[in-house]
């Protein structure tokens, strides 16, 4: 081989390094772009609506005619809206504990016991998570009219339990499977029966996941439109009220103002609960992302 020029004698390592660095920059750019597009699609419309809820014009669109709280004042006077809101809250408050109980029981059954048809039972319980809600709503409607049950907020509640408790089952059984079985055995070994073990060891260890499940179930129930729509009869939940008001154009800014308000409250509540869980978990040396995202 020929002798190289002095400036080429340095090893090629820096070039490789440079390539890697460039690749890493490209990867970062792709990632940031992706997240930005996602955020825009997800939150863009909500932000736009929120902004227009302060617009003096009755038309939701440009031009912006100056700020006003007029629509919010009108919203306060919409008694039908507030009634539907109260109904939605009541349903969610009943549905959430029901779902937690059913979810806990089914998660235990599926992950702790070996019984015949366990696989079939598991798939059956989790089925509502993959069946379209439209179908569930329509079949609920048909079922209730077949058995001659009058549609009301009660039927809505029942349907919400059906669609939401499998979510709790999924979250909790994933967490139960991850739990070291020796921890359960250690409790028995130290003199605790099964019930005491549940109370002092298993439930406390599941508490973060139970909390996260509660948040999900509550917001699923509170925000659900399609299933409620088919099974509410003459009663209104808040999403149903919103939908029916959309047909009257002059109400649009009022609906918009109310929706903005409700969204804001929900975001505050969920972020609040999240932070609460996070602080409690950190005191126990756990990371909330493991508990929820790991499930």
């Amino acid at each position, binding site marked *: 081989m020929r002798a190289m020029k002095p400036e080429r004698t340095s090893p090629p390592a820096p070039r490789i390094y440079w390539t890697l660095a460039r690749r890493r920059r490209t990867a970062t750019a792709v990632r940031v772009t992706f997240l930005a597009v996602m955020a825009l699609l997800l939150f863009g419309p909500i932000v736009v609506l929120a902004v227009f809820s302060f617009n003096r014009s009755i038309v939701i669109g440009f031009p912006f005619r100056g700020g006003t709280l007029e629509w919010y004042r009108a919203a306060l006077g919409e008694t039908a809206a507030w009634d539907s809101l109260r109904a939605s809250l009541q349903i969610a408050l009943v549905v959430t504990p029901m779902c937690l109980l059913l979810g806990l029981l089914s998660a235990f059954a599926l992950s702790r016991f070996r019984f015949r048809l366990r696989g079939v039972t598991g798939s059956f319980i989790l089925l509502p998570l993959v069946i379209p809600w439209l179908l569930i709503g329509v079949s609920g409607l048909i079922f209730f009219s077949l058995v001659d049950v009058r549609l009301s907020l009660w039927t809505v509640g029942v349907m919400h339990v059906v669609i939401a408790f499998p979510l709790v089952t999924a979250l909790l059984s994933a967490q139960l499977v991850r739990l070291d079985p020796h*921890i359960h055995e250690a409790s028995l070994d130290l003199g605790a029966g099964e019930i005491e073990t549940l109370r002092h060891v298993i439930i406390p260890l599941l508490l973060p996941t139970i909390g996260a499940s509660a948040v999900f179930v509550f917001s699923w129930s509170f925000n659900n439109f399609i299933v409620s729509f088919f099974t509410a009869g003459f009663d209104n939940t808040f999403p149903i009220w919103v939908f029916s008001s959309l047909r009257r154009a002059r109400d649009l800014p009022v609906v918009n103002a109310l929706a903005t308000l409700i969204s804001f409250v929900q975001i505050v509540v969920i972020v609040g609960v999240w932070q609460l869980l996070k602080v409690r978990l950190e005191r126990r*040396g756990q990371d909330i992302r493991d508990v929820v995202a790991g499930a």
Partner: protein
Amino acid sequence: MNQSPSETTPALELVELSKHFGNVVAVDRISLRVEQGEFFSLLGPSGCGKSTTLRMIAGFEEPTSGRLLLDGQEGSRLPPFKRNTNLVFQSYALFPHMTVRDNVAYGPRRARLSRTEVASRVEDALRTVRMWEYADRLPKALSGGQRQRVALARGLVNHPAVLLLDEPLGALDLKLRREMQIELKEIQRRVGISFVYVTHDQEEALTLSDRIAVMNGGRVEQLGTPEEIYNRPTTRFCADFIGEANLIEVRVGDRSGDGRVSVVLPGGGTALVGSVSPSSADSATATLVLRPSRVALDDKEPPHGAERAAIPVEVRRVIFQGSVVRVDLEGPEGVSLSASTSEADTSDLRVGRRMWAHWAPGETHLVEPTKSGTP
């Protein structure tokens, strides 16, 4: 103390205890007694049924057959929470959401002891394992060795009839393990509780135990004190598993006279042996067990006879192992054996050098030949 009845009944007795998983025989009719205050080890290779035995004693597996007596009472049908035993798990299985104090207090609280009794027992137990300063920490914030101590305290605090330990030091590094071994033995002696200790580390078992049961394939191969097991192995498996051993296939010669047996070594020499295990009692061939540390090397042929046995060898390899040097040798008929020496100067031990390996016949044992019926 004169509580004579409880001091004569063993803390634990297994009678022909078996466990089958489908058609896998995990534990095969083992019988043993663990005396009050004894440090008893189950030693054996992976998969030999040690954990299964321990889990039957703790109540997590139901025996397929056999009896299990705890403090003289039949115990094999009791659920784990009604047994006077505690298990220290290899993974420690500390409750992650409880402080060290609450972990240790868990047992006494389930036993409905008074608040002051719980507090004083917990303090006692944590001081015993030198973890009292860490009482308010969560398990997350402890090192492996510290978690190990807490797991130990969580068992000791209940004053069980037997404390069961499943490879409790398995997750620790060598240095820490050595330290914990000494401490564990010390603690056991102080609290006087019987320990049943599972390990696959023969050195650990020899260091800690009052008695050892060597297990293989679900069965107990040999049961005895560390000295008995090391010095008088009764089976080929035990000789091989415990300590280093040269296993030399020999023909059994003269069995007559004063009960001493002589064997024909490879190359035709004869030698007396120290002891004969029942497993080789009647066979024509047998395995001679010779510890490398007992083998000496010499250039000249030593005088054979009752005091010395010898075979000619050639040096194959010299391996420096720190405190000792291991010399691999090849004898007549291709037999290989090794000698270990702590002599400082081994520079003259060159590969290919012809020497004599010799030993005192009293330090050898005869066990069954390679293909005997033992699985």
